[in-house]
């Protein structure tokens, strides 16, 4: 099997795995971080060390990191929490059609509660321009939610340019950075984002762990969505999972250390893959023309049917735009939003490369894809 689905999830980095162990087994570090005895203190120290590690990767203060169960929860907390807290400011949200379902489904829910949501369509390159966002603002706009990096295309939004414009207008800015953290340099000291969602398992940390950055100055406020103990400055109750937190901290520390070098290496591998695939006629790069993260390549193949394309590659663990591979039975809404027709959106593959991807794997994947696309095209009647 060739694993090219790092944007879906990554394995734990072995160092993160090791770092988690003492907090799972007997030995004195398994305590509840909220307990006042020695076992609790050890756990608490580990939690705070991890908080500083996660904060360091994004240029935040440790106190601005709120632990959650993952980016889905972070997105829910950011949107629902802000809309509830700032109910007197208005009931309008601006977002994009290419957000992750964690944002889109939360927006749909908010709509049932009376919030108006504007869903912006990206350009053909997959990007929503800052100007589009600013034009969509109304006096009642409470919050803008835009992902830093799109999970399907790897396209990078111009968050640095949009954030100051929103700050100037007094509109809260939430950014889903699940696919950005550890992939591109993020520095929230210079980018005035108010809320930012993070996921551990997209960056070699454990699944079931995430964080929400909540800015202190100027202070972003949220109504908590989980009650029961007042943990995390009252914003997110629940006993802290020390081992998960430590795993995320260590993973983010490593990500920061390797970011530049790893990004460059992945870009080389990705271009190697694209160079092979583009030899085929009728292949289309999704997100072409926009800056993209180094590890993601999303390609549509003309003249092949999507489900057969995916089924032809059983040894390749990638992601497909095919309706049959999605939970909803729809082809990729992201590719549809950037103008691909249903047939091409269906016949798309997302290759996402990562830390353990080798040149040999890339060559094998390219060979298999090229051979199967040719085979399926040859099978088709004229």
């Amino acid at each position, binding site marked *: *099997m060739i694993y090219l689905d790092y944007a879906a999830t990554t394995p734990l980095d072995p160092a993160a795995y090791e770092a988690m162990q003492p907090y799972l087994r007997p030995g004195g570090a398994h305590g509840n971080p909220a307990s006042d005895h020695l076992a609790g203190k050890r756990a608490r120290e580990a939690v705070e060390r991890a908080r500083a590690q996660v904060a360091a990767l994004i240029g935040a203060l440790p106190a601005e990191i709120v632990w959650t169960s993952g980016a889905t929860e972070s997105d829910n907390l950011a949107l629902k929490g802000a809309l509830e807290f700032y109910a007197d400011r208005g009931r309008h949200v601006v977002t994009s059609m290419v957000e992750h379902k964690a944002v889109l489904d939360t927006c749909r829910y908010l709509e049932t509660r009376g919030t108006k949501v504007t869903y912006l369509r990206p350009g053909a390159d997959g990007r929503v321009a800052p100007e589009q966002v600013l034009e969509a603002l109304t006096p009642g706009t409470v919050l803008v939610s835009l992902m830093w990096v799109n999970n399907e295309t790897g396209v990078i939004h111009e968050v640095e340019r949009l954030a100051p414009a929103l700050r100037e207008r007094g509109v809260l800015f939430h950014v889903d950075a699940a696919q950005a953290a550890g992939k591109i340099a993020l520095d929230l000291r210079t980018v005035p984002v108010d809320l930012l969602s993070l996921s551990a398992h997209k960056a070699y940390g454990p699944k079931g762990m995430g964080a929400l950055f909540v800015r202190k100055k100027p202070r972003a406020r949220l109504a908590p969505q989980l009650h029961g103990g007042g943990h995390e400055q009252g914003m997110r109750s629940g006993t802290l999972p020390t081992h998960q937190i430590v795993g995320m901290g260590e993973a983010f520390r490593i990500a920061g250390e390797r970011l530049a070098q790893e990004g460059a290496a992945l870009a080389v591998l990705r271009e190697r893959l694209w160079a092979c695939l583009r030899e085929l006629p009728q292949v289309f790069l999704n997100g072409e023309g926009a800056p993209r993260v180094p590890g993601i390549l999303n390609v549509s193949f003309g003249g092949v*049917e999507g*489900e*057969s394309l995916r*089924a032809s590659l*059983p040894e390749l663990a990638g992601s497909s735009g095919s309706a049959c591979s999605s939970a909803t039975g729809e082809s990729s809404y992201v590719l549809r939003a950037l103008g691909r027709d249903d047939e091409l959106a269906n016949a798309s593959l997302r290759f996402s490369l990562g830390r353990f991807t080798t040149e040999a794997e890339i060559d094998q994947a390219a060979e298999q894809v090229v051979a199967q696309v040719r085979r399926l095209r040859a*099978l*088709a*009647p004229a």
Partner: protein
Amino acid sequence: MSATAAGPGVNPFGYSDAVWRRFTEAPRAGLLEGPGTRTGRAATPANRSRLQLQARISGGRIEDARFQAYGCPTAIAVGAWLAERAIGRSLDELAAIGAAEIRQALEIPDTRLHCALLGEDAIKSLVEAASAAK
């Protein structure tokens, strides 16, 4: 299963074995030419799946058959199965094959019924083309 256990023949997507083998091997895919060759064509609405079934007929019997298909693995398997079944049969015997028999042979679920119907349409088209040429 170990991380490296996947190999040729692995079917991780839940297709029936009958569909999977014909999809991956696509026996009798291709074109027939020459005297006695007749062609049937069928498509689903909006051309999402297309099937071409060809037969070379001699002395009232189908001597050879080929298919071409664009569509999901089940549609491709239907083409391969029909080409395989057609050989050695008369046109009447071919015409007797309906969607129900295709479904049963390939273990096609309800959600893929359209693939079996595509096969039935291709047979009808082929039989019509052959009858018209008589």
